[in-house]
């Protein structure tokens, strides 16, 4: 009986890990950290497997844990150096030197042109918008997104709307204007 339960959990992990990891990667932009976080979230959930019916309800709990962990990690970080540049009008601006939209060459090679554009466009979004719009794309309702992200339904809707607007502006050239709605 215990063996059956363990096999059921293994099957659940195998089925959900790819999408959960893809989601965490898009929030963090660092595949290794994303995998670590997903793994930790699985471990925490499995330790409570006697409380939750993970094969049936686990995905939502998993996404909630991943979202919280990724947002916590992102908000703890600040750019190390802000370099100073002078604008054409002579005023000085400080910038984070890391170009957040730039993909490392190995990731560029992994995706086709549209996928690279999607990845670059996603990187320009604030983490919460990125999480909301991707959860929506994964088929979750606004109510579920609100529960996963710990926000109100209205706030969830606003995040999705703003994310779609930003993404549409960047992806329209690739989608022939289809993204604008």
């Amino acid at each position, binding site marked *: 009986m215990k063996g059956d339960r363990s096999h059921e959990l293994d099957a659940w*992990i195998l089925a959900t*890990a790819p999408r959960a990891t893809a989601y965490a990667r*898009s929030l963090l932009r660092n595949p290794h950290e994303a995998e670590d976080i997903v793994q930790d979230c699985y471990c925490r959930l499995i330790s409570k497997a006697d409380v939750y019916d993970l094969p049936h309800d686990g995905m939502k709990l998993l996404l909630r844990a991943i979202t919280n962990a990724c947002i916590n990690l992102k908000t703890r970080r600040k750019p190390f*150096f802000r370099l100073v540049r002078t604008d054409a009008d002579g005023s000085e601006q400080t910038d984070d030197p890391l170009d957040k939209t730039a993909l490392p060459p190995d990731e560029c090679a*992994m995706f086709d042109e549209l996928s690279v554009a999607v990845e670059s466009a*996603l990187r320009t979004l604030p983490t919460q918008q990125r999480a909301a719009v991707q959860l929506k*794309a994964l088929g979750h309702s606004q109510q579920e997104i609100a529960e996963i992200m710990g926000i109100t339904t209205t706030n969830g809707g606003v995040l999705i*709307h703003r994310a779609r607007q930003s*993404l549409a502006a960047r*992806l329209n050239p690739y989608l022939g204007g289809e993204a604008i709605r």
Partner: protein
Amino acid sequence: MTEANDHPLDAVLRNHLDRVAGTVDAVKMLRHIRESEKAMPRRNWLKWAGVGFGTAVAASVGGFVFFGNSPTPLAAAEQIVDEAKTAHTVPTDRCYEVVTEWEPLLFRRLQLPAISRKHKLWTRGDQFWIETNGDGAKWAMGQETSGKIWFAISRKRGLVYEPSEAGEPLARFCDLVSMRVVSTLSELLEQFTLYRKDTGKPGEAIRIEADLRPSFLNRNPRFRRVKLELDPVTKIVQRAEFQRQLNGEIAGTLTFTLLETASQPDEMYTLIGHLDADHELFDRKDPARQDRRTKFRDEFLKRVQMRMK
């Protein structure tokens, strides 16, 4: 706001997520999860086994002592580091030479060239100050016991950052190139697995290596690997090598070597000790001067970056 279920972007995003998901090795992840699960009971088992083994060792050592043969067991690395922490709590002034070797890839991404620099760090307990006069410019920085960070960017001008302003670029720069001995040793005890690498022969320096213990609670550690050389009698750090991390990436290696133990005036650990009488001070307390503090900080950073080229 109405809920749109079939927005054209949803399919695009879903396809993209699926493509990324296709690169994930779920079997490997499952294996790691199962290994992590096993690690916990195993640690408990090891703990009890350790207690049993320790008792047996203690009994046999006791036997040797009782019957006149007394091999001295090596003290555990944790115990040595704890003793070193106590030794460094005593307010004595020590000067370390600091050699920094930065990771060229990371610094290229930060638009800084690879640099190798030497400077001197004076430390007393958990406070320190650094003076650098390389590259033709003399400036000093330091951290007080309270955690307050200061920069004497010239003899006339000083910048101060409170502990709550740890995200400030200069505060992070200071953290990257310095060492708070007592705090660092506490960090090693809490977050690292420590190993003794010396043989324990009389007169031989105690060598300890520390590897970061991966933990969910310790997501952004400052060091990945640390090597210490301690005086076998006083337990004072003679040499320390830190592999520094920045946002999860290796930033470089810093080596601290003890040069001398001498007395320093108290004011050298404060900003005032590095400024002339007619100095200007910029801290958080005066909101009217915030902009000027930011301006001088940026000018200073720019100057440092220019000199690194």
